[in-house]
């Protein structure tokens, strides 16, 4: 990194932190600190909701995914717009009218204190680990590619986030997120422009898109119904719908964002804007990855994008074997480069037969190229069993570091740091809210003055920040456990959604039946995960459907009055 990049990076981060602290100054009421006094307009709600979901991993890994697997990942988001409409109709008015601080607070009015506490604690575990990963994953990638100290990188991001989140609360988080998201998207736009401009003379934007298409990277929609493939239209629409309903409707890190809306209308507009923009946004990020893929058809990429593992294997007993693979990789790349150039020439000459012939040749070479990469990856894992299975997370940052001019590298790194900070900030903010509102204020020390709870909220933010930093620092040693942590969310989302759906709509089902239903749903999800090849998106559908049906059945077979309290009427909507 050049000095100018350091200046851009440090200035951006300092500006964001100071802006957050200034925006969130002088707050002494809990509603002010945790919900920004419910004064936010729809555009702040919208950008805050989007920035919460779009972590640094979105901007680092998604282009890499398009590089290796094409653009089909966009289908994961197809259920999201539908979820935004459903939540605008249902959850938003309920939460607003009850003036709740957290989603779990609502569950007490419906199923009693037990269910509220259980869901709140589940959230704290899941989001606590999730936020730690939000901090750890980008720190790891940035550290490996840039050779920085991972502990220092984690610590710097974590402390900066704690500074403005603990002092400024939700207002600071929401306002900084609007800027952070714009910086991150601006960075991606710059990367795409550079990728296209760096293509060899005679290869234009249209040619790049057509080459990507011929190489299978423009596979946006696949209508094949297959429960075992992770991303197709059906899993995206139904599984993605369940994930989005659960994430935006029951996860406090998102619920808190739209609870800040000035009115029901402002919150709804914020969510609906997200529904309109999210799919094109993900398409755009994946498209950047597809353009990086085309760029690397003409400029030689490394055999493995993970620089640390590359050097490790070069210095190991497998060095000779790896060098052989590198030579094979260089030969295949050169043949591929020539074939890609010929394909572009055939396209420009409108020679359909030649286009077909060159496409097949290029695809065959790509298969051979991919098998060399797979062999290299296996060798790396043989040398270090804890190494990542794939190097896709490192593709985009490698491209940025090797091809962007001084100054713009700083902008891109600032974009990645901003994304990491925005997602971490909402995580900490929601963890503090749930800890204070659902545990501290409700169970431990009720009835205290409002400003005391504000002080506790600030300390809770610091506590959760410290927890996430500590876990992220330790995460490096956890190896494959990281993957398990990443999957924690998928195990609980379906069940959580079932609990809220029953709470909203099946008014005669009571707390005990719902608790039993939730346990059955969880068992069903675990069985699917362990004993079937079902893609993970479908686990959410299973958890939700089984949870709702089981709760209804348990309520139906339970003798009247046996479950104690009478069912509580759901609050009116609208």
């Amino acid at each position, binding site marked *: 990194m050049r000095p100018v990049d350091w200046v851009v990076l440090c200035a951006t981060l300092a500006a964001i932190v100071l802006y957050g602290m200034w925006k969130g100054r002088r707050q002494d009421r809990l509603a002010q600190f945790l919900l920004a006094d419910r004064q936010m307009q729809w555009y702040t709600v919208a950008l805050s909701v989007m920035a919460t979901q779009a972590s640094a991993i979105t901007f680092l890994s998604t282009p890499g995914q398009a590089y290796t697997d094409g653009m089909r990942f*966009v289908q994961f988001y197809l259920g999201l717009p539908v979820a935004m409409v459903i939540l605008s109709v249902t959850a938003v008015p309920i939460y607003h009218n009850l003036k709740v601080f957290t989603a779990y607070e609502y569950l007490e009015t419906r199923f009693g204190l037990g269910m509220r506490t259980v869901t709140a604690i589940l959230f704290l575990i899941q989001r606590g680990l999730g936020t730690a990963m939000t901090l750890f994953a980008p720190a790891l990638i940035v550290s490996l590619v840039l050779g920085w100290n991972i502990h220092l990188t984690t610590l710097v991001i974590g402390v900066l986030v704690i500074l403005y989140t603990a002092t400024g609360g939700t207002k600071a988080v929401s306002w900084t997120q609007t800027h952070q998201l714009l910086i991150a998207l601006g960075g991606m736009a710059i990367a795409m422009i550079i990728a296209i401009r760096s293509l060899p003379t005679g290869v234009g934007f249209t040619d790049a898109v057509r080459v990507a*298409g011929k190489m299978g990277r423009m596979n946006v929609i696949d209508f094949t119904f297959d429960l075992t493939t992770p991303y197709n239209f059906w899993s995206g629409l139904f599984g993605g719908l369940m994930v989005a309903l659960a994430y935006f409707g029951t996860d406090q890190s998102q619920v808190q964002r739209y609870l800040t809306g000035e009115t029901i209308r402002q919150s709804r507009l914020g969510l609906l804007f997200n529904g309109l923009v999210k799919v*094109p946004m993900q398409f755009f990020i994946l498209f950047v990855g597809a353009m990086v893929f085309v760029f690397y058809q003409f400029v030689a990429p490394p055999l493995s994008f993970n620089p640390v593992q590359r050097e490790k294997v070069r210095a190991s007993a497998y060095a000779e074997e790896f060098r052989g693979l590198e030579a094979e990789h260089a030969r295949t790349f050169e043949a591929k480069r020539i074939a890609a150039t010929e394909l572009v020439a055939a396209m420009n000459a409108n020679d359909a037969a030649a286009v077909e012939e060159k496409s097949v040749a290029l695809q065959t070479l790509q298969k051979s190229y991919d098998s060399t990469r797979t062999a290299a990856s296996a060798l790396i894992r043989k040398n270090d069993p804890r190494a990542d299975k794939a190097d896709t997370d490192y593709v985009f940052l490698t491209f940025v570091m090797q091809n962007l001019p001084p100054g713009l590298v700083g902008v891109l790194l600032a974009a990645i740091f901003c994304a990491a900070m925005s997602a971490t900030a909402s995580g900490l903010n929601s963890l503090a809210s749930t800890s204070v509102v659902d545990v501290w204020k409700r169970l431990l020390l009720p009835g205290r003055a409002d400003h005391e709870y504000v002080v506790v909220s600030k300390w809770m933010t610091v506590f959760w920040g410290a927890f996430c930093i500590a876990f992220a620092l330790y995460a490096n040693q956890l190896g494959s456990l990281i993957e398990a942590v990443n999957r924690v969310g998928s195990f609980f989302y379906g069940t959580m959604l079932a609990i809220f759906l029953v709470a909203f709509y099946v008014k005669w089902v009571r707390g005990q039946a719902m608790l039993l239903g939730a346990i059955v749903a969880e068992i069903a999800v675990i069985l699917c995960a362990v004993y079937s090849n079902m893609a993970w998106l479908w686990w959410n559908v299973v958890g939700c459907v089984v949870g709702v049906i089981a709760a209804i059945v348990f309520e139906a077979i339970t003798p009247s009055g046996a479950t104690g309290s009478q069912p509580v009427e759901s609050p009116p909507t*609208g």
Partner: protein
Amino acid sequence: MKRNAGVSPAERAASRRGPGTGAGRSLFSRRDASAPTRLYYAVLITLAVEVILFYVFTRMLA
């Protein structure tokens, strides 16, 4: 205090129209006259158009 204080003109108009009247109101707004029904449809129609465009895009470039 004025009865409709704090209610936007759009919400008042929607309230006057009442639930279940007007295009599409019955699906989304039986109990909620202030719901931005047109925007709900806009989001869903946009999604449908995106899927169609993505499909055309996929087929055209394959």
